[in-house]
């Protein structure tokens, strides 16, 4: 009987014949914490006298959620991470270097890795063919100190995507559509495996958007095969030697197969306050928006900013609508500057904030007022997510976001392409 990608990776990294339902103890090939979860991990290790990193060169501490720090309490939390890095030799990713998940795929995640992170969107790295999953601070703390973790081998849903996107429809629309279909808890404890000719044809950035949101269907990870596109991406970030091919066996056993024909998809949004509360664009066109936010680990990459700039070029944001842009990493920021994308966005009225997570998690730099509506390219729209439980968040692609910034209401991007 063949194996899914999750079973293959967990077999290799545990030394066991890992099958869905088994409990395995696996090597941790990379572990991450961020400034919201890392201090608790460090405190736990201090408390039990295990303040060390088994693989310091594969342990990364990210200062991204409150960066630069807006409060002294958070400045002190940052100090805790800096001290731990200095003591253990773990890698510190400083203010402005970027959102942890974007930095992981740029510099650390490798096909075949087991990656654990104290951040639920750690699943983003699944797009390079890794088993990457989010856990709590204590689990990750033990993984950092021991180099191992325990995992239940998940059953897998095969997401089989075929066909081509119509103009104005992107991988964000696909993943929102899929979450609407599966439900916010429809894939709890499962792995999603993204496959089919449409996924094979996607860029890595498009795949990152898919894997990033696997957790929004409750899934433990969202994995793509490692192929020629993965190889080209790793070469482009100077890590060609990290590549290895990885694909599921043809006779792998899947719990469920979910099919999606891209040619039939419409631009799609999630309405407040759950990600599975999806609607096609025609159902929400005309909804007033007070703030548009383009960025995050879901859609803050160069191609995302490029699409937004192509729509906003020579135009202005609506006078009653704020436009925030946040590149996902320093590398993305520099590329966007070099391409003139940032200038286009600023001329259109955007406030560009430094790479980080602040607006999306409601810590700083984009908090909503009472009753305000935000259209964001991020991955979550829970009540209170952007810092105010009286706010309302819609999720969309960067194209919908850009068109909506111009009109001041949710708008169909196909009118601008």
């Amino acid at each position, binding site marked *: 009987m063949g194996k899914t990608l999750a079973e293959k990776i967990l077999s290799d990294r545990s030394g066991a014949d890992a099958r869905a339902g088994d409990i395995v103890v696996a090597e941790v090939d990379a572990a991450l914490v961020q400034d919201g979860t890392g201090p608790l991990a460090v405190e736990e290790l201090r408390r039990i006298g295990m303040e060390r990193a088994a693989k310091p060169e594969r342990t990364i501490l990210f200062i991204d959620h409150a960066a630069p720090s807006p409060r002294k*309490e958070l400045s002190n939390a940052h100090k805790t991470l800096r001290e731990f890095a200095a003591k253990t030799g773990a890698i510190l990713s400083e203010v402005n270097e970027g959102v942890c998940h974007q930095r992981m795929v740029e510099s650390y995640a490798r096909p075949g890795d087991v990656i654990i992170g104290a951040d639920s969107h750690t699943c983003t790295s699944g797009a390079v063919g890794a088993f990457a999953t989010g856990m709590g601070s204590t*689990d990750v703390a033990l993984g950092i100190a021991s180099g191992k973790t325990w995992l239940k081998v998940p059953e897998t849903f095969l997401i089989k995507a075929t066909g081509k996107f119509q103009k104005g429809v992107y991988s964000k629309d696909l993943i929102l559509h899929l979450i609407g279909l599966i439900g*916010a808890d429809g894939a709890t404890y499962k792995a999603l495996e993204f496959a089919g000719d449409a996924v094979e044809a996607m860029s890595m950035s498009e795949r990152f958007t898919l894997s990033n949101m696997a957790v929004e269907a*409750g899934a433990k990870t969202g994995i793509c095969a490692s192929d020629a596109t993965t190889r080209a991406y790793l070469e482009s970030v100077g890590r060609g030697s990290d590549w290895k091919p990885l694909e599921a066996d043809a006779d792998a056993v899947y719990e469920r197969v979910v099919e999606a024909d891209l040619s039939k998809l419409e631009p799609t949004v999630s309405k407040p306050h759950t990600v599975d509360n999806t609607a096609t664009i025609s159902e929400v066109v005309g909804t007033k928006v007070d703030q548009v936010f383009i960025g995050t680990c879901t859609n803050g990459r160069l191609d995302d900013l490029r699409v937004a700039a192509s729509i906003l070029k020579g135009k202005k944001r609506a006078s009653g609508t704020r436009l925030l842009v946040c590149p996902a990493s320093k590398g993305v920021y520099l590329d966007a500057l070099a391409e003139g994308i940032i200038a286009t966005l600023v001329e259109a009225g955007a406030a560009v904030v430094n790479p980080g997570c602040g607006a999306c998690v409601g810590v700083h730099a984009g908090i909503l007022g009472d009753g305000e509506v935000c259209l964001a390219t991020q991955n979550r729209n829970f009540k209170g997510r952007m810092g105010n439980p009286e706010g309302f968040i819609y999720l969309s692609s960067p194209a919908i976001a850009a068109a909506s910034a111009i009109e001041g209401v949710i708008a169909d991007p196909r009118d601008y392409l």
Partner: protein
Amino acid sequence: MLFKGKAWKFGDDISTDHIAPGRLFHLRTNLPELAKHVLEDADPEFASKVQPGDFVVGGRNFGLGSSREHAPRIIKLAGVGAVLAKSFARIFYRNAINIGLPVLTCDTDQIDAGDELEVDISRGEVKNLTKGISIKTTALPDVMIKILNDGGIVEHFKKHKGFAL
């Protein structure tokens, strides 16, 4: 472990943003202070009125969202005896067991706000004293029972000098 207390009823999809919102991010290194706001965005009265041994009773997919372990930690710090829900999100569930917050899966439609409950964690028994009924719970997975019996994941790790699951 036997707890007796009042049910605090919540709906489906109670997220970690309801439990420990991002606007209080700066309190994550001060859990006793953060606990004063636990579940505030789902029920503003909960944190100030909950009594030791009371129960948080949710619907489907309790604890969805972020990996923040602070969420189960502040529920426990508030004195809650156990969380009962129809289903739990994956990371919240694992975090809760890791830190010793009992979580039980059962049909919570049989519980109304304010009902007196008696919950035997080790036996997985839920009695609704107000309604005079017993509610069936789903048995915890073996791996979770091992972790709970060892007193949480840290104690488990120390005792076995690694993971013995």
